């Protein structure tokens, strides 16, 4: 039974293996679109090494929520960079490029989201790495891919531009209004996710054949893939589908309604028994037999849908979200208030499932963040530690992976191939860091350690 499968799932996470353990991922990634993918792999147990150009590193470290930072760190950076090791490596320098190649020889997956041709300029593009490591799975993510008119123009892109270019913003609005931007970085996050489907498919191919490959992903092409019916609708009717606000035009009824207290509730009741349940809940069982609403395809017709949604709106306007949710449970349709951040954070269901999980981190303390949203009974993904400063794990990585000597390390720092954080918020460790905690195999004895009698 499902109950037997999932009993004590959250409690037993630390006792179970991770599905991608033993895989090494090298990322040269910035701002949301880049680092999210390697984070997901790392939550599934891969060893992700975040390569950043010192001393500033990933620009995402700069982003705040209207000025708010979490212990100096960008909340966005904290969210998108999980379970990683941090290497400050300057790829502009030949010595840095050489280190990158040495690491690439031992890596399984490389991901970057730089403009086309940049990795080639750094002498670490797919064609070079593939000669060192033919099994490498090499992912490049950007706005327009690596070829085609926009790529050749070197046209810059970002999430907002992609929402605009793809048509999704135009669709996600009310008729006649200037489109609004999604609050989330939808094209970045979804593009990053879709890219991992390609990476993990390539892994299956490699598991069977030993062969790696090169993958390119455009954030706009990715978000276009989600727009399902929009494209055949255009092709068949020759017309733009009209924006429809909160109404789901493929499901009827499905819309967001205003309740008596002015708050919003979303509701859907499309299948026959669900629709009959909604009619009963509204005290209007006869509507289920009304010929305008007889079956789903009939209800979806514009005139019928409009009439039905007006009836529901009038009913909802006299109710509270709580009443409507209770009626939905009782009568078997779906409804929820449009929840704000406080309501989401108060949701005990997602906490007990371990989706909203408590991170217990030496540097950033305890806080709640999202677990990878696929629960895996034998190999549960798990958030283990939070973000680190630029170059924080240099010594560990150089010693453990490449067995660099003191002299070699010193030379790498002197040429600037290796480097650490700038003394700026988000780049450096949080202000209450004790100068030693979490450093792995560090040789530098900090004053704090000396005081405690050294290691």
């Amino acid at each position: 039974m499902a109950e037997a499968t999932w009993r004590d799932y959250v409690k037993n996470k630390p006792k179970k293996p991770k599905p991608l353990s033993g895989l090494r991922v090298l990322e040269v990634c910035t701002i949301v679109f880049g680092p999210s993918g390697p984070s997901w792999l790392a939550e599934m147990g891969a060893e992700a090494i975040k390569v950043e150009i010192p001393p500033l590193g990933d620009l995402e470290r700069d982003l705040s929520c209207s000025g708010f930072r979490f212990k100096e760190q960008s909340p966005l950076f904290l969210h998108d960079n999980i379970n990683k090791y941090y290497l400050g490596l300057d790829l502009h320098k030949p010595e840095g490029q050489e280190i990158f190649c040495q690491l690439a020889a031992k890596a399984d997956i490389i991901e970057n989201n730089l403009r086309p041709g940049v990795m080639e300029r750094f002498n670490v593009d797919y064609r070079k790495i593939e000669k060192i490591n033919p099994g490498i799975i090499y992912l490049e993510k950007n706005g327009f891919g690596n070829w085609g008119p926009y790529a050749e123009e070197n046209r810059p892109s970002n999430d907002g531009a992609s929402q605009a270019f793809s048509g999704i913003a135009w669709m996600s609005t009310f008729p006649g209004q200037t489109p609004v931007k999604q609050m989330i970085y939808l094209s970045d996050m979804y593009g990053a996710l879709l890219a991992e489907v390609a990476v993990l498919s390539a892994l299956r191919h490699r598991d069977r054949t030993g062969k790696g490959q090169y993958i390119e992903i455009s954030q706009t092409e990715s978000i276009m893939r989600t727009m399902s019916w929009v494209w055949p609708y255009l092709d068949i009717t020759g017309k733009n589908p009209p924006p429809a606000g909160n109404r789901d035009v493929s499901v009827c009824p499905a819309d967001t309604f205003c309740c008596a207290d002015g708050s919003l509730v979303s509701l859907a009741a499309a299948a026959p028994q669900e629709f009959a349940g909604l009619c009963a809940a509204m005290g209007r069982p006869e509507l289920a037999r009304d010929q305008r609403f007889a079956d789903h395809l009939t209800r979806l017709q514009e005139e019928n849908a409009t009439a039905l949604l007006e009836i529901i709106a009038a009913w909802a306007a006299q109710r509270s979200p709580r009443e409507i949710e209770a009626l939905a449970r009782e009568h078997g349709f779906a409804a929820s208030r449009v929840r704000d951040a406080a309501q989401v954070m108060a949701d005990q269901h997602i906490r007990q499932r371990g989706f909203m999980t408590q991170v217990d981190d030496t540097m950033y303390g305890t806080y709640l963040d999202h677990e990878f949203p696929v629960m895996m009974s034998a190999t549960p993904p798990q958030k283990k530690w939070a973000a680190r400063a630029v170059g924080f794990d240099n010594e560990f990585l150089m010693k453990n992976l490449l067995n660099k000597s003191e002299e070699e390390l010193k030379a790498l720092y002197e040429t600037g191939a290796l480097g650490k954080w700038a003394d700026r918020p988000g780049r450096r460790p949080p202000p209450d860091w004790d100068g030693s905690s979490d450093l792995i195999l560090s040789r530098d004895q900090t004053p704090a350690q000396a005081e405690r009698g050294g290691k």
Partner: protein
Amino acid sequence: MSADRPKWAEWADWVREKDDPRSAGPKLEALEGLVVLDLSSQSYAGAYCSSMLSEFGAEVIRVEPPQGDFLRTCTPYGLVHQGEGLNYLVEGRNKYHVTLDLNQPEGREVLQSLAAQADVLLETFPVGTMDAWGLGYEDLKKTNPGLIFASITAHGQFGPQANDPMPDYDNVAQAKSGIQYATGAMLPPEHDPGTCPWAVSTKASPWIAWCSAGTFMATGILAALHWRHRTGQGQALDVATTEAYMRLDNYTHIWFQGGGHVTERVGGLDNALWLYCFAPTSDGGVFLGGLRLEMWQAFCDMMGKWDEWGVGDWDSLSPFLNQEAQLKYFPEVAKFTSRHTSGELERMAVEYSRSGRLAPITTVIAPILSPQEAMLDPNWNERGIFTPTQDPVYGRVVAVQAQHKMTETPIRTKWTCRPVGYDNAFIYRKYLGYGPERLNRLLQDGVL
């Protein structure tokens, strides 16, 4: 090719030669040989998930009830193409379609036979349904310990609300995620909600929560497949649609914990970035982007505000990274953009990169395109996204394809959909050895 191609043009040509979707046909497929049973029921998340796998060459067997899946009727404005709803018309891609009535004991027996030969089983029934049929994970793994059993539901397989009877819908998941609440137009000053019904929390269109759930599940299935390759061990996977979509939100939960702040709607603005907004134009709207101070300064220059605002003296973007400053400057930005067409502004940014005071620095200006404009854009057509598929049954169908570009194992769209039960004869012959006599009897008994 023109003489002014970029320095890295040779690289671009090499990539294109290797991954242009037009040359995908004879290449290997990453998931060839993988057998997936898709039992998903009135769930686009399920259909989308199995599409992710069938595009890579998995043999996906769609198991529908004899009358077909309800999802086939979920289509915009009730529009159908040769009897098929438009969502399913593009999401039946590369799949084999069989019918089976799981409410009958014989139907369940057939399913057990298929599940014993499958690598992945995907289902979206209300929690407990598969168990009640004797088809739950604990039942099926007895005969097939390597099976990956994937469930997508509204609330997940466990937790205090797992048995909540509400069905899984995209718009309701969006409402629960916290994202819809914080997206939408701001109420203009001195207006009330009654006169501006559009100034409310607004969901993303269409079915993005379902797509997120389906795509996350695809990554979970593939990771579980890698684990099985190493150990032979299968497992059960659980995705809740609301959680999957919520995972795409980068900060509202952290902002709330650290600052007690509830993220509210900011219309076309952004909580974390400036210059980074949607602005109205005389013929629609544009996205304006400039994450560096110089790019914002460039835009101020284009607006003719260089001297008036003392733009040249600014030395940091920080003063603009809060809502107060944005609400002060945005009306000026909007006043300016409203006087121009989107095209004029786009050209202005290009011109500025050549001859502006801060050239080559300029602002990213992208028109907010309608889907029709996006579909006609030669860039996407050259990259093969909208290449029509010639479906053996439905004829010409435009379904977005080739969204991943890969050198060795590219995805491809072989067909886009099949009618209900279209592949009964083939699949039941291939896996169960059923011939015409047996099939006819099962059809007559309503099992298929």
